[in-house]
């Protein structure tokens, strides 16, 4: 009796497995990002954006190459590089050929190395790395490889755009740099010092300091120093509660100038800043929808909000990941041969869904796109964030930011 049950179970399992592998017409994309732990909010929000983009741009439009559908398969990496490599192997073993990841450059660095190695050793089941968010410049410079494509503007490009805007504002004479004491905080500070001293010689950097990450109870003393330094503007790469704590303390201390940030929006931050941050908090980002560039953008954002009432479109680039992948598959005429798809994606140009153009630069696989400086406000906001009245309104657009930015990448192609 028992053997029969086992046999039946085994057969069912085998059939089930067979069915999944044989299910033609599905392009699986592994989404490897934190889905539990302290960064789960960011991860789950990104997952929802990926699923929605796949539905909107591919599955509801008849799929790719005559009907193949995109399927996003989530893998929880708990934001650990080690765990990510395990999940990568699981994904590859499941026959997935497209890996999407974004949160933490530490994870992206581990993944790009692992994928490079895997593709060299296993020429028959190579995979592509769609990096949708990790902004460490090294990924498209010293560590670049043929399989890695970055869809966000990297930290250097963003800082370049930001310093262009600061330079154009003649009222800003003194800048204060503050960040979390770890690799990204240091990278932002270094890029700011480099760009400011190169481009704006009469700008004075009146403060450049790092604070312990996630350990500061009260940012008031830092805020006092910023006010006392006579700074006209503040640049910070802070995120999470360090961002809110710093921003609130600086505003409470009487600071009125712009606070330029990378990540001071959504996941509770916009709602918490509310009226206090109005016209003070600014973001540098790669896409924005206030005002929406087209009717399609408007409908896309509204549709997302209707489907996920407690989430927001926070990473505009995710829509472009899906769109460009689909276009590359169509151009290559295949959705399984990743070498052909990667060649198709290299140097690819297309319209940016959020307005402007897209160019996947061939020499380093860095996406070139418009970079936006946006301001936290409740005026002229079509699509607010965090279910509040506040959102981000476009203030400046830097067309095709970093188009001619240098790279040390020496791409080796198969």
């Amino acid at each position, binding site marked *: 009796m028992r053997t029969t049950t086992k046999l039946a179970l085994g057969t069912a399992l085998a059939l089930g497995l067979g069915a999944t592998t044989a299910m033609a017409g599905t392009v699986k994309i592994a989404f490897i990002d934190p889905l539990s732990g*302290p960064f*789960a*909010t960011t991860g789950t929000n990104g997952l929802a954006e990926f699923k929605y983009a796949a539905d909107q741009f591919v599955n509801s439009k008849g799929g790719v190459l005559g009907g193949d559908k995109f399927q996003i398969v989530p893998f929880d990496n708990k934001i650990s590089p080690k765990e990510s490599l395990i999940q990568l192997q699981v994904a590859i073993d499941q026959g997935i050929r497209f890996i999407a990841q974004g949160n933490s450059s530490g994870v992206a660095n581990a993944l790009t190395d692992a994928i490079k190695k895997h593709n060299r050793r296993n020429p028959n089941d190579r995979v592509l790395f769609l990096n949708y968010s990790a902004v460490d410049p090294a990924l498209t410079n010293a560590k670049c490889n043929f399989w890695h494509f970055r869809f966000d503007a990297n930290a250097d490009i963003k800082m370049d755009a930001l310093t262009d805007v600061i330079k154009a504002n003649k009222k800003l004479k003194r800048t204060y740099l503050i960040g979390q*004491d770890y690799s990204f905080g240091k990278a932002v500070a270094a890029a700011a010092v480099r760009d400011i001293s190169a481009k704006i010689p009469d700008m004075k950097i009146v403060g450049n*300091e*790092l*604070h*312990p990450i*996630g*350990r*500061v*109870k*009260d940012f*008031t*003393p*830092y805020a*006092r*120093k910023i*006010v*006392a330094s006579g700074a006209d503007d503040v640049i910070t790469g802070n995120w999470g*509660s360090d961002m*809110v*704590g710093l921003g*609130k303390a600086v505003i*409470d*201390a*009487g600071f009125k100038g712009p606070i330029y940030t990378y990540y001071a929006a959504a*996941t*509770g*931050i916009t*709602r*918490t800043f*509310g009226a206090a941050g109005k016209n003070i908090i600014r973001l540098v980002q790669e896409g924005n929808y206030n005002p929406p560039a087209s009717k399609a953008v408007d409908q896309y954002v509204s549709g997302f909000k209707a489907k996920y009432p407690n989430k927001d479109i926070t990473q505009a680039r995710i829509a472009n990941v899906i769109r460009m992948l689909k276009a590359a598959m169509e151009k290559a005429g295949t959705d399984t041969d990743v070498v052909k798809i990667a060649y198709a994606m290299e140097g690819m140009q297309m319209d940016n869904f959020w307005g402007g153009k897209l160019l996947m630069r061939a020499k380093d696989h860095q996406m070139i796109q418009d970079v936006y400086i946006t301001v936290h406000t409740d005026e002229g906001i079509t699509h607010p964030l965090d279910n*509040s009245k506040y959102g981000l309104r476009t203030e400046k657009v830097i067309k095709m930011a970093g188009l001619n930015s240098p790279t040390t990448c020496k791409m080796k192609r198969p």
Partner: protein
Amino acid sequence: MDMVLVNLIDGLVTGLLLFMLSSGLTLIFSMMGVLNFAHASFYMLGAYFAYQISTYVGFWPGLFIAPVLVGLIGAMIERYGLRRVHQYGHVPELIFTFGLALLMEEVVQFFWGKNQLPYESPKILDFTLFSIAGNAIPAYKMFIIFAAMGIFLALLYVLTKTRIGLIIQAALRHPRTVEALGHNVPFVFMGVFGVGTGLAGLAGVIAGPELGTFPGMAALLGSIVFVTIVIGGLGSLWGALLASLLIGWITTFAVAYNVAFADILEALGLSRPADLASSAWRDLWTLTMPQIGPILPYLLMIIVLVFRPYGLFGKRDL
């Protein structure tokens, strides 16, 4: 000089917030011998309750309702949890409160999510009271100072001038004798635990808008509260106050001035190594005061433990 004044005020605010937490903890510890690891979690609970209440009826009712709710929860936990564990000794008690802290963090995330909440100070206090050299002092900070001072005076009065205080103080030293005199000592314990956690809740209500209301807020303060009561002396209200203020000022002033260790070392007559990158002491030479600010209270604790193991105002050995 202006900045010194501003930092004195900021440090006072930080210190007094710390005092509201540590006063309850020190009473609970000295009376029941329970190291309540979950104390900062009651502080977090206070902030979350007050936020929820403020979305319905505004800040002020929350200021009174939330601490009472937290205190009631605390009393219930003492009555039905801690008292049962108590008979098995101190280690099970420790583990119990430790588990409670983890549980509360999960519960809070379950109901309110992982994001920071938009819990704000009341509109009526949302203005700049005065400015010193361009540095605004918000009215809410002054409110914190007065509220904490009021609590200190009220506690001091109750403990030293009333009959309840007399019984509490007696139960602290000689619980058996007090019981023999006909007082319900377990009830006193429950009351002290309830009031102590209620105070922590009140600290949360007041600190939530100032320091942020998010799931990590308890962990951020958890260890520093213990440092405070050890420095101040276990069971001493004055000690808790003094230690809180000391820590508040130390951490504020450490961040406020960019004192580099290189300057101090040079002032001591040491010369900077020519090749800093390969020197074994390069970390020491490049340190600044704001970087080591967060560990200064712990350093102070060690110094106090070495020279006065019973704390600044403590009456007995640890």
